[in-house]
């Protein structure tokens, strides 16, 4: 039995349209894949940057003569001066080192955690530079704190965190 030529033409056009749709779908899939790949690359870079930022902030704090007495020795009087400037000190420091981070230093020469203020210095052992809040990722570094009034160095920990 001979097929109807009109029906044959219709089915060939349908085949053709299906093929075009598949090709377009394949192209769109490739484009979506490349876009996803670029976004993933940027996200991975961003995640790596956050860790790098923590390490470099730690190094900056430990190496800046604004806060240290000599190389890698934080000065307790300088830290107290900075934290007693309240938010202004943090804002000015963040304008130099970048925003969205905090640093907490705790000297281990005293029991407990006594935040240093203008009033209780030197009978205190911790300093928080910029507001501590969640969520964040943080790393801890061993440092030294120079106790100016007693002229002694104490072991301390520096926690640096960036907000996620």
């Amino acid at each position, binding site marked *: 039995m001979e097929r109807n*030529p009109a029906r044959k*033409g*219709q089915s*060939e*056009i349908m085949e*053709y*349209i299906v093929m*075009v749709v598949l*090709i*377009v779908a394949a*192209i769109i899939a490739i*484009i979506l894949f*490349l876009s996803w790949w*670029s976004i993933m*690359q940027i996200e991975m*870079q961003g995640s790596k940057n956050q860790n*790098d930022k923590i390490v*470099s902030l730690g*190094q*900056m704090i430990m*190496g800046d*003569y*604004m*806060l240290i*007495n*000599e*190389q890698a020795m934080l*000065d307790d*009087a*300088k830290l*107290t*001066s*900075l934290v*007693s*400037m309240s938010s202004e*000190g943090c804002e*000015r*420091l963040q*304008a*130099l*080192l*970048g*925003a969205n981070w905090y640093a907490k230093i705790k000297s281990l020469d005293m029991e407990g955690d006594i935040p240093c203020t*203008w009033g209780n*210095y*030197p009978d205190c052992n911790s300093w928080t530079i910029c507001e501590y809040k969640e969520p964040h990722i943080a790393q801890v570094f061993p440092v030294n704190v*120079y106790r*100016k*009034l007693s002229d002694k160095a104490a072991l301390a920990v520096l926690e640096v965190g960036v907000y996620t």
Partner: protein
Amino acid sequence: MLAIHRIFQMIFGIIVSVTILYFLIVYSGQYKQNQEDFQKALILKAFADEAKSVYLTGISTNFTQFYKYDFSSCFIKPQTKSLPEMQCMGTGIADVPVDTPLIFYPGKQVYISRGSLDYGWWVYNFAEAMPSITFVFNPEGSQEEKDVITSIVQLIPDTTDDWSVVKVGFAICDGGSLSNCGDQPCSKDDILSIISSWEAKTKCTASLKKSMKLVTVSRSCGSFMPQSGVCIGYPNTYGVGNAYIQGSGKEYVWKDPLDLVALSLGGSEKDEFGKTAGEKLYEIKNSALMARLSLAADITSRRIELILRSISPDNPCYASYVSLVNELSGIGGKDYTDLSQMDGLNQHLNAAKAYFQSLEEAGCERSMYGA
């Protein structure tokens, strides 16, 4: 005769093919441009990281990735309330924040090193990145000039190490001729020993390559301008003077050798908006230094107040601490744009340095270098 569906197929096929082809060409062009901009941003980020590493460790390094694309229009722009940003004019590259005090002059390969300005009570560290450059001096022969040039040379990196791919050198211009040390530009050590005994030369008229920066130190800067580069006036008793950039028409007040390095390194080369590279480096240098200097002075003043609470006025350290805190309170909070303000600033800085030194000598303070 062709069937109707064949004609439809052909027309539809042509329309679809052209549409797809057009879309692919546009997309691939866009994708290539995006990837190129992404790569450029990565290179700038890598450079900023490398500069930070040098700033933190003090270990100099070469940065050689700039050869891949054209970064000649890139410069660091200060921001009012956030980090300075590396910007590249006329490109689609995203601005890259730079959290290191950095003096940067672009080139295919740059040498990054660390320098410092010692204020006694505070040390300002900075990184400087520059390509192969020859600083050309046109000596006048006076002692003031020798002192100024010596202070500039001391802040320029020594690139005589075997591993340095960048060579920063020095030459002397005498009329139409340039004299080097043998076939090569003089090294830092060579020029420092030459400066002490050099004599006046005639005005420089030699044709200089793009990589040569003419630095003229003269009492008559302002009324006289060299053919290119910068003209640095003599300092007054507070160590402050004026400097001029050829083609700029502005006066730049300098108060420390790093101002002069910034002006000399940038020189009179202009961007498409007519701003000189020297002016851009001068701006970023002063923006970075003044923000840090002001905060450091405030922290140190408060620190001294804390110390003064705990010692009696009879203590031998007391008077020097009081004098130091008085001097520090005069630092910061101003724009420091004119000569008289800079005079006042340098007066306070010089006095504060002297008081801190006396505190160190009396054993009241430790040296910043751990001595």
